[in-house]
């Protein structure tokens, strides 16, 4: 099927691009920071984090689509840090 072939090819190219790799590092760092950031800095961290993902969604929707789940996972981590209860955000 041509559609799937093209999809796979495009995905392969996207995942080797510099933009993807730098977004991946950034997202990994955000996840790490979400675990470590002081409970009193969560407010500002959340603002910065959401602003990063907003801009990714606006400028590179193709990349955001890949990292959308990670974005929601980070929000879940923050909810757990703040409330002591885990959460699955959709």
């Amino acid at each position: 099927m041509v559609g799937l072939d093209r999809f796979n090819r495009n995905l392969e190219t996207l995942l080797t691009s510099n933009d993807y790799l730098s977004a991946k590092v950034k997202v990994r760092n955000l996840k790490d920071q979400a675990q470590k950031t002081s409970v009193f800095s969560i407010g500002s961290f959340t603002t910065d984090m959401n602003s990063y993902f907003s801009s990714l969604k606006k400028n590179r929707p193709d990349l955001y689509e890949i990292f959308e789940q990670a974005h929601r996972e980070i929000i879940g981590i923050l909810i757990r840090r703040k409330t002591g209860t885990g959460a699955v955000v959709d």
Partner: protein
Amino acid sequence: MIFPLIFQLATQADQTAADIADFRARFNVPPPNFRFYDQNDLRSIVQYLRRRGASDISASEIRILPAQAVAASRLAVRGSFTLPHDSVRLLDSVQPLVLVIPQRHLNRLNQLSDQDTQLGMTTRGLHLSNNNLCLLGADDYASSARVHLERHEIGHFYDDLLSGDSRLLITDIYGADYVIPKRSWVTEGLNEWGTARALNEVRYYKYETLAITLLEHLVGAASIRSARTTGDFREVQGLVDRIGGVGLFEQFIGSENGAEAYLTLRRGVLGRSGFNSVAFENDPLVASLLTMNQPLARPLVPHRSRFEYTDVAQESESIETESAQHALDEALGSYAPSLRNQFTPSDRSRILTQANREMTQLGDFVLAVAVALPKIRPDLAIEQEILDWSSEDAPLLGPLSASELSRLRDLVRLTPNVTVSQNNARYEQAMEVVLNIRTRRTEDLRLTHVSNVISGYCNQNQVEPPPQAELRSLGRRLLERDHNLTLDELTDLSLEEFRFTYPVLAITAESNRFARNGIFATTVILDGEELVRDPRRGRQIYEREMAHLTGGARSVICGSRESAQLNNVNPIPSSNAPLYCAELIGSSIYARLLGGDVLTAQNLIVYYQRDLRAIVVERPSDHASVAFFEEGNQISEARGFRNLPLIRGQSNPAITSDEMLDLLTNAYRLGFISDLALRRLQIWDNISVRLGRN
């Protein structure tokens, strides 16, 4: 592989046995702290949601869907789990409670501000662990996605109830069982796959679902359902590894996101017996996935790849078929969107010929055109690079100068009778210039960033920053260690390197920062070591002095006015009421009060409910003080507080005002807190009533 190595540490036999037992236990009974709400618990639900961030939600805004309205969804989702006979009754006896709430409250619960939503961020649903609430946003619920969303969130509830979201069980290469953390994309992928399979349509988490759909084609839906139910993926692992080789499943399941996982698995099984690629391609779920947005508008070709292929002699053979021209149009549109109309028919024909030759090595037409184009029209290829620079790099690296542009265009100017190989050499030379400019400016940008971070930190904390030249050399040292540091990483490392290289300056800055927040150092001993430049020695000095500084700060915050004077430190100003009250309590609360909150008993209780899990009351000598800490003892122990079990609050987020007052009354009766302290907290009246009553 790194992944198994990381988790080898957690594979001790006893731990594994305990984990397996835990899986089994959760398989048959809900965890003890699982809370089941029903339709009559509206008041508790409102309170619960308010505590979790929807602070102004009211009961009238919550719509609880009747059980019969979600029965079909519940049964459908239940069908995507494989349960032993004796557990089916359990699952029938516990039911999700599906709530529809206004979007703004859902966004608030999901940590999105109004600004985020204005920027296009949105959420659809939420399931908070350890209870049966499934929250749906009113916007999505009103759309055609209603059933899909409902089933997706109910799926999370069952996941939470049955196998938990955190771990999965596989075997290591020696066949021993071990438990690894379950990546959240796996949870989402399994859940959306279950929902999408039943409804024949994917709506959320495209890549995660695609990865699990591919897995389904390898191991069958029944194995996946069973693994999803119990968290035991050993059978699935065995089936995948049999097709793609040992370790493939672990590599797949350890991928960072769904897109990587899908490609990893696809590469591993493509062409292997046991994988029917035609059936996969014809799967209606895959077709549904492909109708969602296609990834990538323009392929990003690594520059070096253009020079790594054998030179080919120029040819004028043309391929004029309609489909070839159409494919070329598409490829040129991807690679050189702004210049696609500048290619003459002769250029197009030569590029097509060259691309067909490149195809033998590259196997991808778009990539082949990207490689062929500079060999035929290096001038247009470099023009595209210049345009890309303007759109992507200029904001950070600054625009190319006029002389740089003119040099680049001179390098690739076309002359008659130039061979493909000569063109390629010109293009390569021009790209070398572009890369040099980029490298030089990137380094300059990073060095400036390091200088700015350190200078900003120094200025903010009222110390003179070191000279710019020294800061740039500090930055070079960092970049020599790792050329690939991002700006964010550089920010952290710059401050660390600064602290260890200039410990005296850093300690002074930190001391000033503490003082600005009303915390004064008792002793900061600098020992005249200003000339230290050895980072290892600097680190020792910095850490030793910081220990003094934070020790002093604690004694001020947690000690009394008198003890502050006794220790010859500045007491916290009494003119500021919140600060004055803060003298009584831990630095964490103190930090919050600086935000302008007024400390009242109610606030304390709110803080407790919102953020904190334990109350610790301390009586150092003649003075009582109260500190609140996060759950667990690490923080309080690290700060030297005694934990007094008699009056420590239960880890119960639903503690009420009455319970809090009981706690403090008890503390007073046991002599751990003075009436003065309670008066300052403005709750003495309440306490005295309780004392009289008792």
